[in-house]
């Protein structure tokens, strides 16, 4: 077969597309289930699910993944029937469909690994086949009649008619608005896409129908879009939402006497817009959206990084010219412009890489649903996501962590319904995930449950260490690598499983913070704070033991002068080679450690130096350094090789001298020290 190589290329694209549609199918099925639980229906979601599976089937057939075709085909058939009969799904059908999606996901994952897709089990196929036989055809009898132009009415799907009638019954107004695209409107940013977006904020768009009209000044393209809406908003609000002022746009929103809709003549050319155009426009328009391989963005970022390094070199060269008495005023002005341009360029690239946090959270409901069934726990999920955006690479690393915490919470923390009732708690456990930008640079995520909480003493006993006195100590324990998990889970009903990995991702990889707050009997909250973007940070540079280092500004609480006379020496344990001094900072005692000693660097005479104060889980630690050099933006390159992975070192940067400078994570360093030595002397 000669087409193998080509097919491989297709497969890569196929996998991406398939995953996207699978995600849509999952989300929409859950929406159907949610509606079904509330006693209502969500015909639109049924239709979206149908579309996704239809697409998946088509794509799979194209690349010859027969097992997926077999599953998707059955699901598609059933969904098409459901759509036609009003878009309601019964719980058993939803379960079977979710199983089907899961089965497709497994096969897509297998293909992504380079394996082949296993044929579907007979049992699954039979389950999907049998769905069609029990499909409900009990569409509610229409309580009203839509008086809509028959040609338009004919184009509405049964579920859309149903949605309109329900909406009217609920007291919403059914409206139709028209929009004719024209070059002038496009120039003002008014396209059918932007109108759709704005309209969606004030009304439910039931359907957008394109139709041909005689070309006129109003509709120069001979094309008009009819938007069928359900809304509680006023006409003015709708007119405003679609950006219409005065005569620019006539008859935006005409109220239709409910339940009757106004009738209108349809020009005969309408037929031309049937079919193809219809489908294209109704798929949530993705026009103007480019899907880009992240590695291309990384290339752009890499290019920018070298630009910034070059800028450092330029700045140094100019500084040395200035030292030699050369007039560099004009050069300096150019450098100022250049700095601004680089900043703008950087911001632009960073923006491209940003994805909404909602993308991170939208898969959680499915996860919880699965866990609910697997563990027989009754769990209510509360999700609270803001409008924050974060870098794709951060989001990718964060998701497994959230999965982990959610799994632990449902699996171990939340009690069985019986046990909860015995303890006087509501039968249904609560899992709450919040997600919001805390500052411009940090995202805070909390995962909390109202389960049993973690018994510190029991965890400590298991780990063979003294019982921690606070939550920070508990977290240190939980994150001990290889802490036996199964026993802990049973004896303390707490966690511990893989917390080490959570910590490594959040703290070591992302340079974020991890906190836990747990009250026995009441529940546990994990708080993660991660940077929204990685790679370029604002940093302090300093010198210590004749070596230069940088530390991100966000990590630093304060930089203080060290008055050698005001230091209090802490009695050193015999076996403890680190000297710890106590620095008095606004009346609070802060332990101070010589960074040079921690890193075993040559120390430049014991003089009055500076100390960098960082804060870890509420308590401050100061690191004494020789001198501060300055503050600048640096490009952080990760240090991935195992040979140079060390606690407290988060990456390397180039300050313009062509040599790498280490980027320190003093927060992580203080954490690793407290495990090793501070724990003995400071507690």
């Amino acid at each position, binding site marked *: 077969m000669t087409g193998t190589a080509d097919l491989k290329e297709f497969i890569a694209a196929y996998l991406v597309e398939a995953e996207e549609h699978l995600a849509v199918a999952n989300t929409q099925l859950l929406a159907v289930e949610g509606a079904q639980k509330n006693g209502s229906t969500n015909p639109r979601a049924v239709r979206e699910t149908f579309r996704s599976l239809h697409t998946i089937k088509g794509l799979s057939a194209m690349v010859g993944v027969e097992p997926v075709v077999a599953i998707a085909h059955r699901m598609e058939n059933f969904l098409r029937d459901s759509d036609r009969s009003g878009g309601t799904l019964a719980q058993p059908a939803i379960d079977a469909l979710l199983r089907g999606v899961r089965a497709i996901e497994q096969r897509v994952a297998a293909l992504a690994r380079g394996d082949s897709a296993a044929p579907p089990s007979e049992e699954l196929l039979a389950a999907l086949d049998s769905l069609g036989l029990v499909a409900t055809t009990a569409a509610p009898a229409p309580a009203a009649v839509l008086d809509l132009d028959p040609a338009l009415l004919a184009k509405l799907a049964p579920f859309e008619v149903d949605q309109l009638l329900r909406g009217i019954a609920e007291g919403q107004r059914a409206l139709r608005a028209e929009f004719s695209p024209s070059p002038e409107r496009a120039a003002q940013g008014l396209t059918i896409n932007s109108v759709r977006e704005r309209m969606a904020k004030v009304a439910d768009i039931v359907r957008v129908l394109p139709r041909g009209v005689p070309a006129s000044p109003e509709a120069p393209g001979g094309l008009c879009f009819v938007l069928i809406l359900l809304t509680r908003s006023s006409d003015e609000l709708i007119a405003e939402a679609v950006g219409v002022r005065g005569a620019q746009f006539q008859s935006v929103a005409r109220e239709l006497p409910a339940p009757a809709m106004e009738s209108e003549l349809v020009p005969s050319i309408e037929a031309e817009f049937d079919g193809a155009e219809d489908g294209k426009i109704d798929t949530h328009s993705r026009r103007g959206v480019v899907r880009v391989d992240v590695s291309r963005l990384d290339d752009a970022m*890499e290019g920018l*990084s*070298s630009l910034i390094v070059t800028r450092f070199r330029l700045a140094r060269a100019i500084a040395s010219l200035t030292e030699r008495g050369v007039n560099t005023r004009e050069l300096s002005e150019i450098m100022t412009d250049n700095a601004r341009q680089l900043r703008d360029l950087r911001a632009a690239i960073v923006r491209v890489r940003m994805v909404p946090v909602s993308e991170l959270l939208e898969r959680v409901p499915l996860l919880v649903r699965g866990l609910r069934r697997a563990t027989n726990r009754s769990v209510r999920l509360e999700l609270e996501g803001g409008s924050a955006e974060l870098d794709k690479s951060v989001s990718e690393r964060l998701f497994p962590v959230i999965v982990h915490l959610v799994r632990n919470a449902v699996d171990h923390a939340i009690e069985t319904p019986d046990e909860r009732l015995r303890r006087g708690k509501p039968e249904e456990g609560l899992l709450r995930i919040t997600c919001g930008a805390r500052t411009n640079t940090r995202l805070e995520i909390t995962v909390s449950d109202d389960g049993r909480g973690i018994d510190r003493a029991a965890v400590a006993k298991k780990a063979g260490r003294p019982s921690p006195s606070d939550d920070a100590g508990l977290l240190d324990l939980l994150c001990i*690598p290889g802490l036996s998990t199964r026993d802990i889970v049973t004896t303390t009903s707490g966690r511990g499983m893989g917390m080490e990995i959570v910590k*490594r991702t959040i703290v*070591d990889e992302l340079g974020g913070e991890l906190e836990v707050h747990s009250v026995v009997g009441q529940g546990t909250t994990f708080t993660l704070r991660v940077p929204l973007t990685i790679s370029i940070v604002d940093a302090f540079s300093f010198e210590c033991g004749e*070596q230069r280092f940088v530390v991100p500004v966000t990590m630093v609480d304060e930089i203080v002068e060290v008055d050698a006379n005001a230091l209090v020496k802490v009695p050193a344990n015999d*076996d*403890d*080679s*680190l000297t710890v001094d106590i620095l008095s900072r606004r009346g609070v005692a802060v332990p101070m450690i010589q960074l040079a000693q*921690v*890193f*075993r*660097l*040559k120390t430049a005479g014991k003089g009055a130096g500076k100390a960098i104060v960082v804060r870890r889980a509420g308590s401050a630690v100061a690191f004494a350094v020789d001198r501060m050099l300055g503050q600048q933006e640096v490009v952080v*390159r990760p*240090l991935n*090789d*195992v*040979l*140079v*992975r*060390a*606690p*407290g*070192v988060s990456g*390397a940067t*180039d300050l313009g001298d*062509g*040599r*790498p*400078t*280490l980027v320190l994570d003093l927060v992580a*360093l203080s954490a*690793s*020290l407290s*495990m*090793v*030595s501070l724990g003995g002397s400071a507690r």
Partner: protein
Amino acid sequence: MKLHVVFTLTGAEYALPFDSVLQMESYTGATLVPGAPAYVDGIVTVRGMVVPVLDLRTRFGLPRTELTLDTRIVVTESVGRVVALRVDSAREVLKLDVEKHQPAPSIVSERSSGLVNAVHPLGKRLLLLIDLPKLLGENSHDLQPRALPANDGSNKQLPS
């Protein structure tokens, strides 16, 4: 016939397949990485990449030397890692007939912990062939971050 890069360590000549070498550079020292193993000199930037420098003398248990004008780093790539090897000098690229590789005498392979896996006689010279995947692969399973040397009191991590 295959191209090889030839370099020296304490007077002995070693060879690496040319296609596993990214480049050779003169070397004026690396940035120390606290907590890294004793045979790691630190990190350098090569072609925009941050690369660890492995001191081959220390790795092979040979005495350390000061930097000289001849000191080179040979930047190698194998098992998905890029690592620079610090060597005494590196000046030659030779075509070697792979058929003429001979198994390393047991004393050599033992002394080098198997890192020298073959020898190649070339006139009066004897080239030692390094098993690069083994040299670089032996650490790759060790993914645990090392604890800081705060308690042991030993000072072998960093040259002073």
